[in-house]
């Protein structure tokens, strides 16, 4: 029980949630525009690789690495756009191909770029120090969650509200939603649907690039094969569980960050438990979460949930 309330666990939960949330934002935008983007998993891998490559080439400059990760991954995401928008491929199959391509290319380029196999550690990295916010010191919850975190974490938190505003109030956001609901109707209203689709895929690439560089140059300082470990799929799950709403998605990704942090604690405290079993937890959690949200959605659609609720209400009235 003490683990659940531990401040350091919550801080590390926020750190773990950040890359998932960033990727989830990309997935969310694509989903709003009617594109099933499971390629985010591969995008994160590419983001990790490019930022580590840039950092190692520029003598440890993490800022440049981040920039490279964002731009490079956005450019890479054009391949997905080409396949999905231009050639109208099946979204899921194109996503899987992109993921295979991403892991293939990064693993292949490890030898020529890093002169390494499987794992490359950045020796000369100049880490960005965490941002301390002195005015938060007396605010109970926020201090633990937000203070002394990386700048990327703060940016991601601000991004939740930017996205919320964008999807609700701006013309661009409404265009995105309109296309997702009915592309034909949006077209006849004068929205250039393909242009909007390209933009959401580019944005998802940029977000995933940032997620990748956060993962590889701020949390860790290395690139290894399989380091993304299905975070893109987890991100997709948070989008569904968060009911396609930026704040909901943020809480869902915090749940996964928390599960991540707890499993690290368990491994530290009880070394007897097999690591393979602990590693399984996030994936099973993702399935449970996905099932819950799908089930509640289904019940809501068939109206059974409301019926039960009404019955309960009537019962309560009788009691009173």
């Amino acid at each position, binding site marked *: 029980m003490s683990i659940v309330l531990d401040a350091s666990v919550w801080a590390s939960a926020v750190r773990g949630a950040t890359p998932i949330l960033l990727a989830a934002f990309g997935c969310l935008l694509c989903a709003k525009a009617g594109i099933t983007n499971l390629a985010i998993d591969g995008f994160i891998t590419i983001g990790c690789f490019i930022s580590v490559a840039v950092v190692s080439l520029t003598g440890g400059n993490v800022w440049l690495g981040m920039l490279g990760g964002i731009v490079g991954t956005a450019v890479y995401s054009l391949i997905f756009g080409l396949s999905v928008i231009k050639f109208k491929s099946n979204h899921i199959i194109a996503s899987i191909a992109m993921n295979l391509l991403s892991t293939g290319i990064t693993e292949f380029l490890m030898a020529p770029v890093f002169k390494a196999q499987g794992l490359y550690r950045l020796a000369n990295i100049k880490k960005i120090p965490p941002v301390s916010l002195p005015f938060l010191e007396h605010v109970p919850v926020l201090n633990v969650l937000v203070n002394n975190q990386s700048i990327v974490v703060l940016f991601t938190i601000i991004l939740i509200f930017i996205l919320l505003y964008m999807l609700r109030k701006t013309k661009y956001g409404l265009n995105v939603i309109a296309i997702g609901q009915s592309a034909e109707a949006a077209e006849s209203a004068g929205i250039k649907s393909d242009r909007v689709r390209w933009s959401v895929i580019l944005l998802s690439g940029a977000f995933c690039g940032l997620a990748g560089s956060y993962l590889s140059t701020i949390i860790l300082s290395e690139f290894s094969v399989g380091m993304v470990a299905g975070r893109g799929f987890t991100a997709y*799950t948070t989008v569904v569980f968060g009911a396609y709403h930026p704040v909901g998605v943020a809480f869902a990704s915090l749940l996964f960050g928390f599960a991540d942090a707890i499993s690290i604690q368990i491994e530290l405290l009880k070394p007897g438990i097999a690591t393979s079993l602990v590693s399984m937890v996030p994936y099973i959690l993702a399935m449970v979460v996905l099932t819950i949200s799908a089930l509640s959605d289904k019940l809501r659609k068939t109206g059974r949930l409301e019926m039960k609720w009404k019955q309960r209400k009537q019962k309560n009235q009788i009691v009173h």
Partner: protein
Amino acid sequence: MESSLWRKRIEGAVRAIGRQLCMMLVAIMIVMGFLAVSGYSPFIVWEGLGRAFTRDLAGTIRWAAPMILSGVAICIPFKAQVYNLGVDGQIYLGAIAATAVALALPSDGSLAGLILVFAAAALAGAAFAMIPAILNLYCNTDIVVTTLLLNFVGEYLTEFMAAEVMRDPEKLTQVNASRTLPESLWLPKLAAFGNSSANVGIYIALVIALFVSFLFFKTTLGYEIKLVGSNAGFARYGGIRSSKVLLKAMALSGAVAGIIGAIEVTATQHRLVAAFNPDIGFDGIVVALLANNNPLGVLISGFFFGGLKNSGNVMERVTEVPNIVTQIIMAIIILTISANVTVRRRKRKKEALSK
């Protein structure tokens, strides 16, 4: 009348194969450019492919079996427009079940024991594939994501079984692996290739691919699967319960995947090794796509990709090019094929409009 129909069919088949060959050539060209940019000789791909189909044919046959089966496992639910992307996880479960049964059996029952091992593997794979199917049926959970997530569960479960439960206590190596299977339960090698990795698994793959073709083209279940895939509304109108078809297709696909696990364990690994599976399940997607979800076509494309996979290993052995190159080729092939289908369709639409 009859002959012209046949000629049309043959022409169509030839055209289809020609188009797929073009796609593959495009993919290989891109990868050659890629190799040249990163400082390798681009012609290594051809050398590797050439060797894979001549001198190292045994390795090609060894890889063709899992490729064909994986293609079959993917194409059964694809035909019903269901995406089973969890073939890798199901392979792992099949391998776990195969190893558990093989290690528990008395060591002298050869053929009956082997059949039992394969049955257990097929059951385990089918059961693991039923999880996402049942979740999809009763809770409406997205089958694509659950199958993808279960891949990780399967992989870690294998690591757990190999490292903790079935670990060989006598061997103190770092490798997480179980005890070696009794030799009577090893799948025999192909005698024609001498002491190589080519094994009887290819016959099993052949039989299963033919069996599934029969299922597809000659039975009610195959008809139902195709109908649900092409027009679910019409299928419902015709009295087909798509939920039952989904369950059957997923179970069948999982069983085939489980058999891949059993072949890998009994024929090549001879024990349960953690993370033994080099993403065979995802390779199955490209095999099935290239064959246009036709189990007979899977035989050809599976054999080709077995060769490709083997050529990757040959390249890695002979030169310094890592065998991951094959994965890049496959990814590009998937991208080009999935794009091509709609381009063709659009052209046809335009023709229809101009008429």
